[in-house]
C-alpha cells in the first residue's frame, strides 16, 4: 500500500511490481501468504492430502482441456475419436492415460483426505462449513468420474451408465424425471452422451471451481485444525511457515504424484475396449471403477425385496442416508465441541471404512458367474 510512486532509481522489475501492486494489491496477498502457518504435531502428515488432491485436480483440468482438442461427443464418432487419439495422435495415449490415472488417484487422495478429517474431527466448530463444502466437492468429484467414464462410448461405460442412471431412476417420486433428465430420453443413447459431455466438461468444472474457491477461502480463514487429542497433550510442537517451508514439502509430494501417475500411464495405459452396442448382452465380469465398487457389490448382495420394497430402492435410500449422515457430521457429533471423546462417532467412522474396504474386496474376489 505504501509503495505509491516508485523511485526512478528502482530497477525495471521493481517498477513493474510497484505498478502492479498499486492496482492489484499484491502486497496484501503476500502478507496473507507470509502469515499462514501450519501446526506441527504427529498428525501433520494428513494436512498434505488436500493440497495433493488440488494438484491432481489441476492435472485433470490440463489433460482434460487437451483431450477436448480431439474428442467428438456423438455416439457415432466418440469411440472412433478416442481410438484415433490413442493410436494416431502423438502422446495421445499418454494424455488420456494420465487423465484416467490421475482421476483415480484424485478420488483416492480425496477419500483419504475426507477420512483423515473425519477421524481427526477437524470438522469441529468453526469448520462445519469447510467440512460440508468438502463433502459436496467429493460428490462433484464422483460426478466427474461417473460422467467421464461414459465419454469413450465403450461397452463397459455403456452398461455402467445404464445401471448408474437406473439407480437414480429408483429414487421415489422424482426418480423417473431425473432419469430422463440425465439420459436425455428413456434409454442411454447418443443424447445421454452429449449430456454427460456437457456436464463433465462445462457444468461440473464451473460448480467445482466456485465451490473449491469457497473451500480454500474457509481453510485460509480458519487455519489448520489441531486435533483435540493433540491439544489435550499440550498442543502442537510448533508452527511451520506455509511459505516456503510447507509449500516446498507440498511440491515434493506433487512431484512424486506426477511421477507415479506418469509411470502408471506408461506401464498401464488406459484401455478402450469394444465400442458400445445397445443390442448386445452385458459382458460377464462387468464392474465399475474401484471407487464405486462397494456400492456395486452392495447392489449385488441386496435381495430382490426387503420388507416389500425393491432391493435397489433400499440400497439407494440407504446410501443417501449414509451420505447425509456424513454431511451433517459436525452437527451430529456435538460432544466433540468441548474436546470430549466420542467413541460412538469413532466406531461409526471406522465401521464405514471397514464396510467400504470389505465390500470392495468382495467385489474383486467374489465369483461373478454363480
Amino acid at each position, binding site marked *: 500500500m505504501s509503495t505509491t510512486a516508485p523511485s526512478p532509481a528502482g530497477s525495471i522489475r521493481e517498477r513493474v511490481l510497484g505498478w502492479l501492486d498499486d492496482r492489484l494489491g499484491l502486497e496484501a496477498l503476500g502478507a496473507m501468504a507470509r502469515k499462514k502457518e501450519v501446526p506441527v504435531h504427529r498428525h501433520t502428515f494428513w494436512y498434505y492430502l488436500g493440497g495433493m488432491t488440488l494438484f491432481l485436480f489441476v492435472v485433470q483440468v490440463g489433460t482434460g482441456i487437451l483431450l477436448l482438442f480431439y474428442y467428438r461427443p456423438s455416439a457415432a464418432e466418440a469411440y472412433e475419436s478416442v481410438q484415433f487419439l490413442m493410436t494416431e495422435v502423438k502422446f495421445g495415449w499418454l494424455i488420456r492415460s494420465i487423465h484416467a490415472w490421475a482421476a483415480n488417484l484424485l478420488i483416492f487422495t480425496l477419500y483419504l483426505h475426507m477420512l483423515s478429517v473425519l477421524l481427526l474431527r477437524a470438522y469441529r466448530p468453526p469448520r462445519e462449513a469447510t467440512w460440508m463444502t468438502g463433502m459436496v466437492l467429493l460428490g462433484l468429484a464422483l460426478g466427474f468420474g461417473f460422467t467421464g467414464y461414459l465419454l469413450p462410448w465403450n461397452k463397459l461405460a455403456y*452398461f455402467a451408465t*445404464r*445401471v448408474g442412471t*437406473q*439407480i437414480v431412476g*429408483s429414487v421415489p417420486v422424482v426418480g423417473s*424425471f431425473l432419469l*430422463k*433428465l440425465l*439420459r*436425455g*430420453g*428413456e*434409454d442411454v443413447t447418443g*443424447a445421454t452422451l452429449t449430456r454427460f459431455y456437457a456436464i463433465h466438461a462445462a457444468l461440473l468444472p464451473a460448480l467445482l471451481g466456485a465451490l473449491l474457491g469457497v473451500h480454500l477461502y474457509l481453510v485460509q480463514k480458519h487455519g489448520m485444525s489441531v486435533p483435540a487429542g493433540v491439544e489435550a497433550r499440550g498442543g502442537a510442537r510448533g508452527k511451520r511457515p506455509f511459505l516456503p517451508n510447507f509449500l516446498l514439502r507440498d511440491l515434493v509430494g506433487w512431484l512424486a504424484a506426477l511421477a507415479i501417475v506418469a509411470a502408471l500411464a506408461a506401464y498401464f495405459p488406459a484401455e478402450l475396449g469394444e465400442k458400445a452396442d*445397445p*443390442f*448386445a*448382452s*452385458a*459382458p*460377464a*465380469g*462387468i464392474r465399475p471403477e474401484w471407487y464405486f465398487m462397494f456400492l*456395486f457389490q452392495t*447392489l*449385488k448382495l*441386496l*435381495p*430382490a*425385496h426387503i420388507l416389500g420394497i*425393491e*432391493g*435397489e430402492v433400499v440400497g439407494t435410500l440407504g446410501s443417501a442416508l449414509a451420505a447425509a449422515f456424513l454431511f451433517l457430521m459436525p452437527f451430529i457429533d456435538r460432544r466433540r465441541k468441548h474436546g470430549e471423546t466420542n467413541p460412538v462417532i469413532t466406531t461409526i467412522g471406522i465401521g464405514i471404512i471397514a464396510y467400504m474396504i470389505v465390500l470392495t474386496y468382495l467385489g474383486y474376489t467374489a465369483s*461373478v*458367474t*454363480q
Partner: protein
Amino acid sequence: MSADETGGQRLYAVSRARDDSGRAGGGRAGSGGSRRRFLNWLLGTGAGAVAAAVIYPVLRYLNPPEIRESTTSQVTLSVRTDDIPPNSGQIFKFGNRPGIILRTPDGELRAFTAICTHLACIVQYRDDLSHIWCACHNGHYDLRGQNIKGPPPRPLTAYTVVVQDDKIIVSKEA
C-alpha cells in the same frame, strides 16, 4: 478508504434514523415505512419473476421432448430357426429395445424382453446353467423369464414366438 467508510456509515445512520422516526412517529412517516415495504415487495416479486422466467424455460429445455414409444408390436427376425440351436440364445432388436430369443434344451423357441428388471442391463443366455442371466449384478431368470435368484425384483416380459416356414416372428402379447 477510511473516509469512505465513515461516509457510508453516516448514510446508513441517517436512513436508520429516518426509519426509526417513521415507526415511532406514525402518521405521514408511517406511510414512508409502507412505501418502503411496497418498494421492497416490488423489488422482491420483480426479482422472483425474473428468476422464474429464466428457470422455467431452462428446466423445460433440459427435459427432453417425448419420443413416441416404439409402436412395434411384431418383428420378423433376421436369424433363421436353424441359427438358434437348442440350449442357446441371442439378442434381437424389438423396435428400439433389445429382446432375447432362446431355444430351450427341449428345443422350444421362446422370446422375452432382454432388459433386466433390476437395473436395466441387457441379459444373456447361459448355456452352462441353461437359463437367462444378467452379468451386471448376477441376476438369474428361468426359461419362462421368472426371476429365480439374485436382485431382479420382477420376471422378464415374455413375447409370443411364431415360426412360419423358416422365419421367426416375435410379437407382443395382445
